[in-house]
């Protein structure tokens, strides 16, 4: 498989606060993979993702996308990647079709807008304003805005946070289709079921470093090699997360 992302000893220290957000992470991602980051709040997931997307400059280390560093290749790389941010606010009275058309206009080669709307089940809402959409519909619009430029890598920063279970399921189906089409997905999430469902490879980040990585099943087996769980159920990624980080995602220390 072709390697599309290579990260080596990536570090980020914020100048103003001298806080180390990322303390040296290295990983590689292959084309068509879904690679996920999980970790507690402030662990460095979003900072790593923003450095990968060229939104923040690393303090040290290297990032290569498609074998190219950001320095000197920004224009080429921007045409091949896209991102969905945590923030899902935009012009309230912008129509769905207008939002997708706006982002299509930035790419020399873009997917037909009607086709994208159909792909994301947004055809009935094409003339609705963004403020009239549900959270799930709005998040699908933001994904459609990202996908319309035919990106090879899509970065998704906690894309289903705040969505109801049905909307999350719909969103996962769409991401799975994109993955099947050969698009590489890089995802951060707080939801264990989400990364378990979507990700081929996972990295668990805590205090700016990767403390565990591999496929979800490999991580579970490695972490719970011994039958330490007394409950009559199989270990899940949530168990792994709690054991490795000591954090309960629903509210602080476990």
């Amino acid at each position, binding site marked *: 498989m072709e390697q599309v992302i290579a990260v080596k000893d990536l570090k980020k220290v*914020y*100048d103003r606060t001298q806080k180390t957000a990322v303390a040296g992470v290295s990983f590689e991602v292959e084309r068509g993979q879904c690679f996920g980051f999980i970790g507690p709040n402030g662990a460095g997931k979003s900072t790593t993702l923003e450095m990968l*997307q*060229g*939104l*923040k*400059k690393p303090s040290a280390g290297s990032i290569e996308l498609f074998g190219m560093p950001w320095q000197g290749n920004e*224009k080429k790389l*921007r*045409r091949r*990647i*896209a*991102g969905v*941010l*945590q*923030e899902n*606010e*935009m*012009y*309230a*009275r*912008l129509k769905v079709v*207008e939002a997708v*058309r*706006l*982002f*299509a*206009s*930035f*790419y020399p*080669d*873009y*997917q*037909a*807008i009607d*086709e994208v709307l159909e792909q994301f089940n947004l055809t009935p809402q094409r003339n609705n*304003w963004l403020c009239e959409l549900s959270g799930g519909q709005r998040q699908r619009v*933001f994904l459609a*805005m*990202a996908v319309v*430029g*035919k990106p090879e890598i899509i*970065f998704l920063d906690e894309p289903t946070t705040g969505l109801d279970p049905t909307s999350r399921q719909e969103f996962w189906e769409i991401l799975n289709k994109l993955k099947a*089409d050969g698009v590489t997905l890089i995802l951060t999430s707080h939801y264990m079921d989400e990364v378990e469902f979507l990700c081929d490879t996972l990295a668990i980040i805590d205090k700016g470093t990767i403390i565990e990585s591999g496929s979800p099943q490999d991580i579970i087996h490695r972490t719970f090699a011994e039958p330490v769980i007394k409950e009559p159920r199989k270990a899940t990624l949530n168990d792994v997360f709690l054991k490795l980080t000591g954090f309960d995602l629903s509210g602080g220390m476990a």
Partner: protein
Amino acid sequence: MSHTISPKLYPFWQLMLLNVRPFFREPAAMLWTFALPVLIALLMVKAFSGSAQLQEINVAVTYNEAPDKSWRELMRDDLQVNLITLSQEQTEQLLASLADAQQEIQPSGPLQNLLAQYDSLLILNQGQIYTTGDSDQFNDKAINYLMQLKSGLSGNPLSSQQLSIVGYRYVDWLIPGIIVLQILGLALFSISNGLVSDRQQGFFKRLKLSPFKKSDYIMGVVLARLFLLSFQLLLLLAIFYFMFDFKPPGNWANIAVVLFCGSACLCLLGVLIGARSTRVEVSTGIANMLYFPLMFLSGIYFQTSYFPDVFEAFVQWLPSTAFLDAFRLVANEAAGLQQVAPQLTILAGTSVVLFIAIYLSFDWGDNG
């Protein structure tokens, strides 16, 4: 992936539409951005351009039957005049005071009580008129009015009529200033605050993730505002035309060119204010810091020729001054574009500098 041939989309056009649409879809934006500024402009022109009505003239006559009886009767019957006859005691005190000091009196007792009631009072004594008000303009008008009444007695009434020369009236001079003031306000506050709001919503970060061109975005924002301004200006000019008889002798095409160049320059200034601000409080503070000096230094309310020479030389370089000077020249003095070339050069040069500054300093959410 699709094999459909997609139509060519122009990013700056899409970005311009993005900035135009909310104004036509948001009733509140329509009200605050269009209707209210137009109303304020009308009120300002109305307030500053009208010739003041002559207030009631308070005339005090001394007890000793001065001035002559027929003039006194005419004043008593005139609705514009409030005739007050001083008592003997007041008259004596007044005459004594005037004998001591011709220009400054320190009344007391009944005279003080009387004078305290009026901001302005004309006192008629034998062959003399004293005035107490601070406004020379009012005093002159009031004395003229009384003299006209008196002249009517001799069978030679004076008539007075103001001659209004279109293009040279104060209102013709004022209207371009009010229009520039409107553009300045919209550019500095509305644009910069809009950019801050976009930044807070993460829109620029979203843009930055795509291969958009910074220049397309800047052009899109400025063109959107110019498009919106064109409606506002057409409405204002139409109202000024019909309500204030504002019919500039200049060429409308030249006026449009000057309005375009000046507005574009001020809009770029607004974009620069919002280029890095992450909070509305900051952008509004910066806009205020620029708005008031530019308003007072640009000759909107009074001519820049009143400034000291050194100061005047400096303010000529301000984009708002160059804009207004060029506007007044092409509108009121029918100047051609060649004659306002210095002002247009200042506007073009400032626009280029602002564009570069925006291009280099804009915070697209990728700093840090």
